[in-house]
């Protein structure tokens, strides 16, 4: 556990804050890896690195947190100068493709956090990248500056959907994905978001025989592959994941259907 100081914060939207910090190990993390963030006295939770020091100008890495409960609330209210504990980075990472290919990145809400370093990487490597971002409403947009900068530089082709139509196309990002995939050819699909959404993306990808890499979530305790709370079929999300390929997911019956609670019992997704 390394204790780091929050060096800066940025509110992505009313419910989501990015916290920046300096940490050597995180600096050399790979896109898609996550850290365990200790909020002293409160909890420790898994969060994907939403930026990686070695790829950012100020050398800071960051996590981006959406408030959903006690720990995320505490973290979201943290200010510059406060201390958090960091373990990791943990897990595997997104595998990029050669620059001749075309990539589709589909993010749902806070799931976009784990895709940001991937998008950085893809554009750096010159891969032609289409990014679909789906949120509920205009006020839920996130990573706006980073995405629009990439988009305006021509690094990515950015398409946004909102469920209420207050920004971009109206509807679900999965519907947009289906359209895009039907009309253009992609070598790979990356996605992170609610599991139901990703399951739909997986289905679409399978139909079109496009390999997918999806970032999944399960209860994380140890993050080092021993406690068994994050298991999904024969895999550990913390060690064998969090990124899984469609090859792997094809035989995992619980994917999109069941997760396990803190007591290990199955509950529907």
């Amino acid at each position, binding site marked *: 556990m390394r*204790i780091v100081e929050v060096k800066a914060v940025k509110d992505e939207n009313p419910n989501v804050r990015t916290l920046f910090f300096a940490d050597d190990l995180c600096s050399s993390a790979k896109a898609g890896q996550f850290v365990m963030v200790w909020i*002293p006295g409160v909890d420790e939770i898994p969060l994907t690195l939403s930026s990686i020091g070695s790829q950012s100008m100020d050398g800071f890495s960051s996590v981006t947190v959406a408030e959903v409960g006690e720990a995320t609330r505490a973290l979201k209210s943290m200010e510059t100068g406060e201390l958090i*504990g960091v373990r990791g980075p943990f897990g595997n990472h997104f595998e990029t493709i050669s620059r001749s290919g075309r990539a589709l990145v589909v993010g749902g809400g806070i799931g976009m956090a784990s895709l940001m370093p991937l998008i950085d990487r893809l554009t750096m490597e010159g891969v032609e990248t289409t990014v679909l971002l789906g949120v509920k409403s205009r006020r839920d947009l996130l990573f706006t500056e980073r995405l629009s900068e990439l988009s305006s530089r021509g690094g990515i082709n950015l398409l946004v959907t909102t469920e209420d139509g207050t920004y971009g196309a109206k509807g679900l990002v999965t519907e947009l994905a289906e359209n895009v995939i039907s009309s253009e050819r992609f070598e790979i699909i990356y996605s992170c978001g609610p599991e139901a959404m990703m399951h739909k993306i997986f289905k679409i990808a399978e139909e079109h025989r496009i390999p997918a890499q999806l970032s999944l979530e399960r209860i994380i305790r140890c993050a080092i*592959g021993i406690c068994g709370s994050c298991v999904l079929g024969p895999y550990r999300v913390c060690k064998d994941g969090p990124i899984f390929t469609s090859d792997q997911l094809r035989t995992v019956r619980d994917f999109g259907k069941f997760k396990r609670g803190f007591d290990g019992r199955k509950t529907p997704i």
Partner: protein
Amino acid sequence: MQPRRSRRLTTEVAGLKLQNPTMLASGILGTTSDMLRRTAQSGAGAVVTKSVGLEPREGYPNPTVIEVECGLLNAVGLPNPGIHSFAEEIRSLEGLEVPLIVSVYGFSPEEYAEVAAVAVQAGADAVELNLSCPHVKGAGSDVGRNPKLISEVVKRVKDAVDKPVFAKLTPNASDIVELGEAAVEAGADALTAINTVRAMTIDVETARPILANKIGGLSGRAIKPIAVRCVYELYRVLDVPIIGCGGISSWRDAVEFILAGASAVQIGTAVASKGLDVFRLVAEGIESYLERKGYGSVKEIVGLSHRG
């Protein structure tokens, strides 16, 4: 990759036949049938499940597991779905190629017995009694530091099931032999030594204990010499098979436990650093050692350090 079978490595603990003397330790990945099967396929000679109780338990909030300089601290708090839900996982392991040992805890001797009975009914090849988890009030080592309670628990469980019963002991005792004796006199078929050592760590920047439960159990390299001593002390006095556990990560560690008196060994924390391959690597290392030293079977070296 399934490890090759070897006559040298074949052994037996309380009637369970093992293809090699390595086992998955309780609480390590043993939460689902899928993970237990994967571990067996990776080369473990037997697998022990996460400890299961009568009722579902959520365990403690995070941080529950934290690396320290020479090992791992955990206070997971025995999260488990309860034996009635877990029986499903046990049943779906029918046909598993290695013995399945279900670890059991309870808040009373009756509970231990009830959980054990359901586990065996569902298909467990043996039960291991968690008399040693150091961080749950009223269960684990709160039972297992008291020879009388140990004795009661073991007796009840023996009455309730017709499969081998292992008693897993705590090192947090002034005399582990006394605990082992109580278990054996009450009918335990084997002893597992040891569970984690009560310990904690405090972060100096925030002046806070890191584990949410403050105190937890230390495992890994740090405790190996403590665990070897426990096995050695138990073997010196008692006449049941001992399963050594605590800080094993290489064949050398495993052989050290076997020479101390262990008939088999369990591996936990090292799965973090070595992955599930650790079972195969340790087993292969033991085999090379036996071959190099001219032994025909791992059984020949059990307790060898006591001679001479």
